[in-house]
């Protein structure tokens, strides 16, 4: 037996084993967060990401329930490590939320713990999640009126939350003194700290078992394997330059001005370059993107289309390049406000990349998903005697259709790619001063197609307390920003949102502030996803099933799909249908 071949083999098996174990540890960190969080935004909606970095600060393994966070951790952890180079002790735990120090946006607070073994750092165990509140003038971090970062949040640069195992009391106190909901923020910081601590424990066990050298070799191999996977995927896309544009509804300040994200996607033998140089300049309002968010959005667009089987780590990213000029909407200059970027701007970036990809590999891309549009609210609940803060995550829109598959109902937004868990209506009522009146599918809300979009959601509730601050955010309220159809499929309608007060009905817009009082009713009609392929080619039985299930009306079956159905018997009128479909 050839000795060299044998050695390679031992590595290859060990690499698989170690790779699986690292993935498992990253999941373990995530599970801990899920189970201990206090903010429904973490534990119900799973708006967080966990990851493991090696001593060179390269992303080794990651668990991203909300995939738009998938590329954000590396920037944050690097910023922390560089800031404190030479001043890091065992037992230190770091915190960061400032977008101008490597964070993606302020509410997603990063917590990172260096993992020591025999006196040296070999790993970082990290978590990042959306906190219910980061102070500033916003609601759950969202301040559509902000014109600078200082109006959005308390800014936390890379800092030690624990110093050699001891809490940095001054910093804890400073943070908790500067937020509206210290009770939730304190609990969730503990939750993140607990999670990275559990991750650290498992990483030390891994180091004890395999030793530093073997682990490092394995990690290099894991990176190389992912890079090979990514190269194979990119080879399936023809070389060329593909351009696309998507619009953001507005920035909250200039409400009549849509903002363009323009991508020029170059595919060549070196990989894929996403060039956003033609995008609009940065805006006054808080939808400006940061580099971590722009890069994440590109990665998400790629991993939900051509790269779905690639293991996500540093190696997979080597072939991907993002060009985002500073001072533009995709890479704002300090001190522009940025909180809205993970939703409003990320959605536009992802859609633009998908449209660019669809020019060469339409089979791999979904039609547009319903953009997020819904409120965060914060106030005092007299029934529980406590402050509360929450994002109304029930209003999930429909997913986009793709070749051969209808979109999933009630799945959106695309930045979460189906990882956002809708909160439980009863737990929601138990904590918040709201009575949910309706929470079900919105018929006729999806884009028609041979494969239709997933249907969206009607979500209405009555307010049972006064003086509640509300920030509504997202997109998709205008004809230009609805979910697009692909390959002949139809787009979905815009959302409709209303605030019904005692003597008026307010049309609710994105990136806007409102206030609730007792007796108000808030109504969200969240759109479905875009359709794929010509609706007149949809199988007759599928159209009939949708009509019987009340998801598509008889009128729309006739007008969009060319299928005539008797509303009493649900029988298809084949003669009339043939005529409409041009077959008679």
């Amino acid at each position, binding site marked *: *037996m050839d000795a060299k*071949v*044998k050695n*390679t*083999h031992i590595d*290859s*098996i060990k690499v*698989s*084993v170690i790779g*699986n174990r690292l993935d*498992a540890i990253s999941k373990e960190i995530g599970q*801990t967060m899920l*189970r*201990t*969080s*206090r*903010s429904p935004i973490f*534990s119900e909606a799973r708006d967080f990401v966990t990851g493991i970095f090696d001593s060179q600060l390269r992303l080794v393994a990651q668990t991203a329930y909300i995939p738009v966070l998938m590329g954000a951790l590396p920037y944050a952890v690097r910023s922390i490590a560089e800031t404190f180079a030479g001043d890091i002790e065992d037992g230190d735990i770091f915190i960061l939320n400032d977008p101008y120090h490597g964070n993606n946006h302020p509410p997603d607070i990063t917590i990172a713990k260096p993992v020591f073994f025999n006196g040296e750092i070999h790993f970082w165990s990290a978590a990042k999640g959306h906190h219910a509140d980061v102070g500033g003038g916003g609601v759950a971090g969202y301040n559509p009126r902000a014109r600078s970062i200082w109006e959005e949040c308390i800014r936390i640069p890379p800092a030690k939350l624990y110093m050699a195992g001891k809490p940095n009391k001054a910093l804890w106190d400073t943070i908790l003194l500067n937020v509206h909901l210290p009770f*939730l923020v304190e*609990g969730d910081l503990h*939750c993140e*700290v*607990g*999670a990275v*601590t*559990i991750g650290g*424990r*498992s990483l030390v066990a891994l180091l004890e078992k395999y030793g530093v050298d073997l682990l490092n070799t394995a990690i290099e191999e894991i990176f190389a*394997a992912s*890079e*090979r*996977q990514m190269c*194979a995927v990119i080879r399936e896309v023809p070389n060329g330059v593909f351009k696309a544009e998507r619009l953001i509804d507005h920035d909250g300040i200039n409400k009549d001005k849509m903002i363009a994200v323009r991508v020029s996607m170059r595919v060549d033998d070196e990989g894929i370059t996403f060039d956003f140089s033609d995008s609009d300049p940065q805006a006054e309002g808080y939808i400006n993107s940061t580099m971590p968010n722009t890069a994440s959005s590109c990665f998400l667009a790629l991993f*939900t289309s051509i790269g*779905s*089987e*690639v*293991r996500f780590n540093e190696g997979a990213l080597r072939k991907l390049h993002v060009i985002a000029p500073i001072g533009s909407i995709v890479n704002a200059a300090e001190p522009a406000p940025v909180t809205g970027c993970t939703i409003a701007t990320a959605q536009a970036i992802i859609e633009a990349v998908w449209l660019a990809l669809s020019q060469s590999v339409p089979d791999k891309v979904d039609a547009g998903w319903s953009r997020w549009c819904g409120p965060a609210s914060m106030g005092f609940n007299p029934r*529980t005697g*406590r402050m509360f803060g929450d994002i109304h995550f029930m209003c999930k829109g429909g997913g986009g259709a*793709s070749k051969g598959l209808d979109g*999933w109902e*009630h*799945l959106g937004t695309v930045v979460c790619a*189906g*990882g956002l868990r*809708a909160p*439980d*209506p*009863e*737990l929601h009522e138990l904590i918040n001063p709201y009575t*949910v*009146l309706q*929470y*079900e*599918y919105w018929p006729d809300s999806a884009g028609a197609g041979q494969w239709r979009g997933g249907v969206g959601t009607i979500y*209405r509730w009555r307010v049972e307390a006064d003086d509640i601050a509300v920030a509504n955010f997202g997109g998709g309220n205008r004809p230009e920003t609805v979910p697009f159809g692909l390959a002949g499929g139809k787009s979905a309608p815009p959302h409709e949102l209303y605030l019904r007060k005692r003597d008026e009905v307010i049309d609710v817009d994105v990136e806007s502030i409102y206030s609730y009082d007792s007796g108000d009713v808030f109504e969200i009609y969240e759109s479905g996803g875009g359709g794929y392929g010509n609706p007149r080619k949809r199988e007759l039985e599928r159209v009939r099933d949708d009509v*019987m*299930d*009340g998801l598509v009306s008889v009128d729309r079956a006739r007008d969009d799909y060319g299928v005539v159905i008797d509303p009493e018997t649900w029988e298809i009128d084949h003669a009339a249908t043939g005529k409409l479909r041009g077959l008679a």
Partner: protein
Amino acid sequence: MGLRIGVDVGGTFTDFLVTDDDGNAEIYKTSTTPGDPTIGLFCGLEKAAVHHGLSLDDFLSQVQTIVHGTTITTNATLTGDGAVTGFITTKGFRDVLNMRRGLKERQFEKYAPPPALVPRRRIQVVDERITVNGEVVTPLNEDDVRTAAAYFRKQNVEAIAVSLLWSFRNPIHEQRIREILEQELPDVYLSLSTDVLPQIRVYERNSTTALNAYVGPVLTRYLTRLQDELRQRDYTGKLLIMQSNGGVMSPQVAQRFASNTLLSGPAGAPMAGIFYGETHGFRNMITVDMGGTSFDVALIKDAQPTVTTEGTIGEHRIASPILDIHTIGAGGGSIAWIDSGGLLAVGPKSAGAEPGPACYGRGGTQATVTDAQVVLGYLDPAFFEKGELQFDVDAAGNAITEHIAQPLKMDLVTAADGIYQLVNNNMAAALGVVSVQRGYDPREFVLVVAGGAGPIHAAAIARELGIPLILIPRESSVFCAAGMLISDLKHDYVHTYAREFDQVDVAEVQALFARMVATARETLESEGVPEGKMEINYSADLRYVGQFNEVEVGVPGDGNISAETLTRMVQAFHARHDGLYGYSMQESPLELINLRITAYGKTFKPKQERYPRSDTDPTHARLGSRKAWFDGKFNEFAVYDGLQLLNGNHVEGPAIVVQPTTTILVPPDFDLICDDYQNYLVFTKGKDINELCKALQ
């Protein structure tokens, strides 16, 4: 007393374990008859009768109890073959069941969502509303209920699930709906959330209640047929049905709570672990069961199986307490493949029973775990002459060469060893999920192994995790049937309370506990359990105010709640939270979410016969030896006939112990002894087995 029979109807075989008062045990196996499982069941009983030299009727007259594990509801759910089910819920909330909380498990892949248990057209809404405090703000519109009933009649609905918002706070509307439906549709199976799971969280409650309706008629039909057949044969003994929670119940209770049988089969394994572990006084064990496509793992702490309320079956949530059995796609048929990055992977895809591994010679060409076992020399065709399977060694080698060895540029044996190591590692990781991730150290547990192929991997898994001792029952192939025989009657009850701790009303809590206890006692009484054999355990789900997940802690005492009881619960909660999640917050206020009781009707436990000890020399059982690959080289493994080994015999590794359906691999650094009950203990070479057993008691 008389004979007791455990019957486990599995996917391929129906297993029987017959025990008598003296602890004698007999094993029978018949082929499962999926069309009507009672055929295979009676076929096996017939076999046992013949063995006893009796007619089936005479044999049955000596049988005191039959405990039955069934996959009938599991199969109906997995194949979409349940009852035509209707669903009634609160107006405005029609789609909570099918929204499945808006989750897509594999986020980056394109695939269709799982088919709905109840299509939207059969979900009907009724106007009514109960508040967070249990007050009726919108009275029930009874016309809506009658309209729904008329629609269901037209649709030939066989079962109806009813789950309304906040019904656990006030069941009045659900109860009225039941009255109306009983009038309107007297023959339809009814499943009410207030009966099945009166617990907060709408989707989880809806899904559990819907599953109960979906499988209710299926189980009812099956049990009616089975009981009729038994009655025709004048069977006067007891029939008990195995539940997902590791307990048994009467057929009458099973029909009402049919969803409690969704894990009826696998639930036998942890119970069997307890049964076999008891012979050595082991109380902490991890049981593993390796089948053709999957590998089931369960943890037992203090001789109690661990329970979860976060189960799923075919992607449908079941929130009733079930044994916490963690399953991964790693079985004998699991396929080895190379991913697009060039790394070796094993599973979760499986060659299944058809075509099966390449070595079965039934047309399988993919490289599977079983093929690796053959190539490495662990399975040898020579020792399976009498068996039903003829291994095709060349086919195994070709499959691995083509799909693994050549692409990875390695030789056949190292490729096979890679598959073996990787699957061992995946299995070890699965053990980590039920132990390390739940805050337990696997080194303090005994590994108990079931299934024919499990013992080939057991030692490697144990070494990976530092588990010092492995117990392999000689009857490991009917492991689950054994577990069923020793299970108590067991019923779980839950009621959501959901108050902050400083608002907990001790009298209210006590009253809720008392109500659950009354229901439990009534049920146990209906199953013929005498007062002295009833046992009730109390527990509660707690969390820090504002958290969204609870931690269950025991409630000390007998349901008499005092301020002192509450304090002790709080202390237990902080400690458990810290162990599980890395922190606790002693100053933080708590919430009391759910009250739970588990009611047991203690059943008779068969004795396990202890055999007189023979000497340590196993030579009389020696069949020969063969070369097998382990730890990077070929070793000469001594081969023994397991059925010839006597208790006290000490086999030194490297060795392979074979039985007709089981192969045990004893690696070079392990030894095996046959214990006083003719089960096997495998342990690290050089350790004193008696001290080891003592340490793990």
